[in-house]
């Protein structure tokens, strides 16, 4: 039954500064919209998978969410694997559906980490992924940890900071065409290079945003009558794990995204060259470069040069992060990775407006948690009814 689960509903709230919302209110808003999008009612939902929250941390966030929204599902739990949470929860939802444990699983994520925390609060909480004895005493932060990867990568492959900057520029140009995006003003490579250094070689515009926002999808069994719209199937999924702490990573060049993508491609029976559009976790410009190369979309050290040549743009070899990604669309914790999924669904439905990739039938989505630590990949496809 692998590959038979469908994504029947997908929705996200606006992203950016949403002071009128809180964590639960925005998650419920996204959930209701996704349920409606799937042509369902709340009573049809028999499984609920939630993520995590910085503003409402809780031991049982899934139960808190179900109580808030008045849901009484047959199965619910929270999933926590950092930036891999959304893809991981969808992989799990597909398994619940394929094994007939559930018919309609709501996967919901969201956080108001911009307005619901003091300034710098999200970065300070994220720094706690560093090892408490062997990393945090040295002042590690998530940008500093990715900077360690970036410098080694640039050293190994002769890549320049300008090459990485081109990734940020490409994604901003996509975000400029998305009405929901947090940051829509076009930027140039020069703007990235002149933005203030956070942890060399990474500058402010190499780093993702901190945003309020929520997103949800519905994963359903195949016999669900979802109208005349194109059906979106979860054709393959995979994971890869090598470490949690960057000081314990076996390599600063090779990461679990390779195994994750290979498994997802193999299960879907496709190769990287078959993919029409990719929505890949981009917490930093270096994150996307490493992942694209590790997964086989580009050769080693070539992703930044490819971005410079327009290969990640709408007419390029691999249109990538067509909503603007975490760098420009927005990053709201577990919802950050879910925004990639929602955009992939919109692309496969032909509903991405000015950002639409012509003839998109096969999409690749990837989430990365920690410091390139936990990886989950999905191959999604438009299938015949």
């Amino acid at each position, binding site marked *: 039954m692998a590959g038979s689960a469908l994504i029947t509903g997908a929705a996200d709230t606006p992203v950016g500064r949403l002071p009128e919302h809180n964590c639960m209110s925005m998650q419920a808003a996204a959930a209701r919209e996704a349920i409606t999008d799937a042509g369902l009612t709340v009573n049809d939902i028999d499984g609920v998978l939630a993520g995590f929250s910085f503003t409402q941390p809780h031991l049982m966030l899934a139960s808190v969410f179900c109580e808030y929204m008045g849901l009484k599902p047959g199965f619910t739990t929270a999933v926590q694997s950092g930036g891999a949470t959304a893809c991981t929860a969808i992989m799990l939802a597909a398994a619940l559906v394929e094994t007939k444990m559930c018919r309609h699983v709501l996967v919901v994520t969201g956080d108001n980490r911009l307005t619901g925390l003091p300034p*710098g609060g999200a*970065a*300070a909480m*994220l*720094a706690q992924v560093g*090892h*408490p*004895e*062997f*990393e*945090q*005493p*040295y*002042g*590690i*932060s*998530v*940008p*500093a940890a990715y*900077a*360690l*990867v*970036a*410098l*080694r990568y640039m*050293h190994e492959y002769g890549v320049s900071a300008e090459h990485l900057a081109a990734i940020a520029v490409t994604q901003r140009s996509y975000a400029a065409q998305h009405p929901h995006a947090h940051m829509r003003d076009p930027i140039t490579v020069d703007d990235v290079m002149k933005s*203030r*250094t*956070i*942890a*060399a*070689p*990474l500058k402010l515009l190499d780093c993702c945003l901190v945003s309020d926002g929520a997103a949800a999808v519905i994963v359903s069994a195949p016999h669900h009558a979802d109208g005349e719209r194109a059906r979106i199937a979860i054709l393959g999924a995979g994971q890869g794990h090598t470490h949690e702490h*960057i*000081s*314990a990573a076996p390599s*600063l060049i090779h990461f679990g995204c390779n195994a994750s993508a290979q498994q997802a491609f193999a299960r879907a029976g496709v190769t990287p060259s078959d993919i029409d559009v990719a929505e890949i976790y981009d917490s930093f410009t270096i994150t996307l470069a490493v992942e694209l190369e590790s997964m086989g979309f580009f050769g080693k050290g070539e992703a930044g040069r490819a971005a410079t040549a327009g290969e990640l743009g709408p007419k390029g070899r691999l249109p990538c992060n067509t909503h603007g990604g975490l760098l420009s669309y927005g990053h709201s914790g577990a919802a950050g990775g879910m925004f990639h999924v929602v955009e992939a669904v919109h692309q496969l439905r032909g509903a991405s407006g000015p950002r639409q990739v012509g003839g998109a039938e096969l999409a690749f989505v990837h989430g990365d948690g920690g410091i390139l630590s936990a990886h989950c990949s999905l191959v999604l496809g438009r299938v015949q009814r």
Partner: protein
Amino acid sequence: MSKPVPVPTTDTAKFWDACNREELLYQRCNTCGGVQFYPRRSCAACQSSDLAWMPSRGRGSIHSFTIVQRPANRAFDGDVPFVIALIDLDEGFRMMMNVIGDGRLSAAIGRRVQIVFEARTNDQKLPQAELETTP
């Protein structure tokens, strides 16, 4: 606001005690011969619990580094710009440390370092790296 101080666990107390004597310890597995850092109860390569504590000579080289301008933990604001590096010790294990000292901003991949100990509190010393001055 003060900088984080390591809180030893039952796995790491011996390592942190040795730091206070200005000794850097790592673990070698008597079963598979592998070395590991950070200290654990068992070998992450073969699951053996037959581990030996070994003293490091405290010499190594920089595998990668970053110069931090905007710390996430505000306790480090006064140190900016400061260097965080991954140090490959000559015995075959890797540790994160700050490169400290006057020459710290000339850190480079491959540069040799020697381990020194910083008194983080009156009760706990922390291993740190200094660039070797002789080529």
